[in-house]
């Protein structure tokens, strides 16, 4: 067997898709006539992250310190041929999965948390903050901050805070302070609590709280998804996959992944699209959050309070309140501008998967491959199974990105 987990697999540069897009990416816009929320980013994000947000450079060197941490947290992650799943589905082609659940925090989120925390720490920042829904992003931020010698404060959507006490424990172990959102420590939080003391919270509210807290305390905020810089960091997924496929002598015909804000999917597909080869590319979203089919392609708020600049994306509206599905990471109302552009152009197909189908897919994957995947990743697996069923006699090579493990989300199987 050829090892595809040598650290040589980790690329030296991240890849930024923006200069390679078929159309210009509509830039962010200010929300207010008299103030610039774009300029405000200087007080919210590490400088290097802002630079990467607007850069024209296709390749961005991964700093040595970040490289070392990437190795510490388990990169490169494995690319595995899912032979048992192929047998189970009686598929004539091949299925590979890239397993981001193999990182120590259990998902791809750590890929961007590390560089963002590193850049903040290099600027002399001592504390960072962020929001978390399902908990994966908060977990990644907590560890990345500690590894870079900083404190972290995580605003966790209230429902998840109550439903997932183990997530909070992990974040605490990694050194973060976890606060249920809406909270009493920000104006945004107090406003929502006064409307309803038992407010369930939402990602949009939690983002606003974290950004407000960062501004009030002159610390920095880490971005979990959606923005260009995050997707650039996540390109490590696709860059590694490409090298691993080369080592195995394979070429991908079909790429499948799940979409919340679009970071694991964009990071996975963009580097693989560089060769211009014709492929089927499928983004799998939650049927309960139909951003690509029912959302509009327009400028919309990133956060609930509109503190961050607006961006052009498929959006269901920042006040959209999704059903509470297990795949908390897919509940975001929008999707990254670069991915939205490719969906609009038909280069990326979108598919919606309901929760029942996700649970079935997770069972099949656990049963055949031994991996309990995250509910978010379950969408990508469900779309893969669906693709194989509808294209049974094709002999294609499918690569699916499994963005995380679901060992802390087992309650999804409780009712069965």
């Amino acid at each position, binding site marked *: 067997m050829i090892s595809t987990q040598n650290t040589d697999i980790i690329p030296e540069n991240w890849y930024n898709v*923006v*200069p*390679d*897009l*078929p*159309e*210009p*990416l*509509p*830039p*962010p*816009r*200010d929300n207010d*006539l*008299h*103030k*610039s929320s*774009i*300029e405000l*980013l*200087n007080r919210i994000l590490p*400088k*290097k992250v*802002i*630079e990467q947000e*607007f*850069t*024209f*450079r296709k390749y961005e060197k991964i700093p040595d310190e970040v490289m070392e941490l990437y190795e510490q947290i388990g990169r490169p992650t494995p690319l595995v041929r899912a032979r048992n799943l192929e047998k189970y589905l009686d598929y004539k082609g091949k299925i590979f999965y890239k397993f981001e659940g193999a990182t120590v925090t259990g998902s791809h989120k750590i890929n961007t948390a590390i560089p963002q925390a590193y850049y903040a720490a290099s600027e002399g920042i001592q504390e960072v903050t962020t929001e978390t829904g399902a908990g994966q992003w908060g977990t990644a931020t907590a560890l990345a901050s500690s590894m870079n010698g900083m404190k972290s404060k995580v605003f966790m959507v209230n429902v998840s805070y109550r439903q997932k006490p183990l997530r909070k424990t992990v974040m605490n172990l990694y050194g973060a302070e976890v606060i249920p959102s809406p909270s009493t420590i920000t104006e945004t939080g107090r406003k929502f609590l006064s409307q309803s003391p038992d407010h369930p919270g939402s990602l949009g509210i939690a983002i606003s709280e974290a950004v407000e807290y960062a501004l009030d305390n002159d610390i920095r905020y880490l971005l979990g998804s959606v923005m260009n810089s995050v997707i650039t960091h996540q390109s490590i997924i696709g860059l590694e996959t490409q090298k691993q496929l080369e080592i195995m002598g394979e070429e991908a015909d079909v790429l499948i992944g799940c979409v919340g804000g679009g970071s694991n999917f964009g990071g996975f597909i963009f580097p693989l699209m560089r060769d211009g080869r014709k492929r089927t590319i499928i983004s799998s979203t939650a049927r309960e959050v139909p951003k690509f089919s029912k959302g509009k392609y327009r400028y919309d708020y990133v956060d609930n309070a509109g503190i961050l600049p607006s961006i*052009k994306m498929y959006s269901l509206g920042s006040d959209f309140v999704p059903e509470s599905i297990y795949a908390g990471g897919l509940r975001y109302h929008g999707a990254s501008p670069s991915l939205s552009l490719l969906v609009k152009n038909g280069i990326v197909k979108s598919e919606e998967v309901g929760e029942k189908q996700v649970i079935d897919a997770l069972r099949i994957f656990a049963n055949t491959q031994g991996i309990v995947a995250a509910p978010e990743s379950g969408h990508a697996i469900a779309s893969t199974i669906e693709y194989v069923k509808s294209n049974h006699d094709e002999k294609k090579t499918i690569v699916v990105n499994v963005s995380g493990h679901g060992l802390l989300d087992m309650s999804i199987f409780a009712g069965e």
Partner: protein
Amino acid sequence: MELGYPSRRAYYDGPRIRETHEAGVVNFNETSIEKLSASLKRKAEKIYLLAYHDDFLENREKIYGILKRCGFSGLIIPDLLTDFYDENEDIIREIQGSGYEYIPFFNPSSPDRVIRNVSKISNSWVYYGLMPSTGINVPYSQDAVVSRINSILVDREINFGFGIRSVDDVRKLVSYGAHGAAIGTLLITMLEKHDIDGFRQFINDLVVMRNA
């Protein structure tokens, strides 16, 4: 010299210039633009009108009328290549077909192939925004931004704008290979303060720099 057609949708301008648009929308009339352009023409070889896409489409006849009567050489549409990219070829052909220059407006987020394609179908100099919006400050490397566009568009006149705050900024841009620089927010600030001396000094410094 560039004159802005007042807009309620000046999305790619920063807060200072947006405020001037706001005042412009209220006070705008064609006589004032005729007067202004006449006095600008005494000082400038060529004058250009900047209009946002929707304003251009909604006031097409009027804008062509202004271009003609006031002797504008061409038109800049800052949001055409971002929000209305699908329409770019038709609009560029129309403007050029009517005898005016179309000035492509790019920024660091413009993809390489877009810069190449649009430059091919347009025949004038190119306007390059150093950052996503005017008058705001985000970190970037001027040197790298200028060499990027120069390497894609060899032998083309490129003028830079957005975020230029001082004669020193202009000097640096020129040393990196810029042909010209657009100055907006800085002048608005001087205007608001009635800082005529500051303005004179600024122009003098520019002239000294050019002649050096």
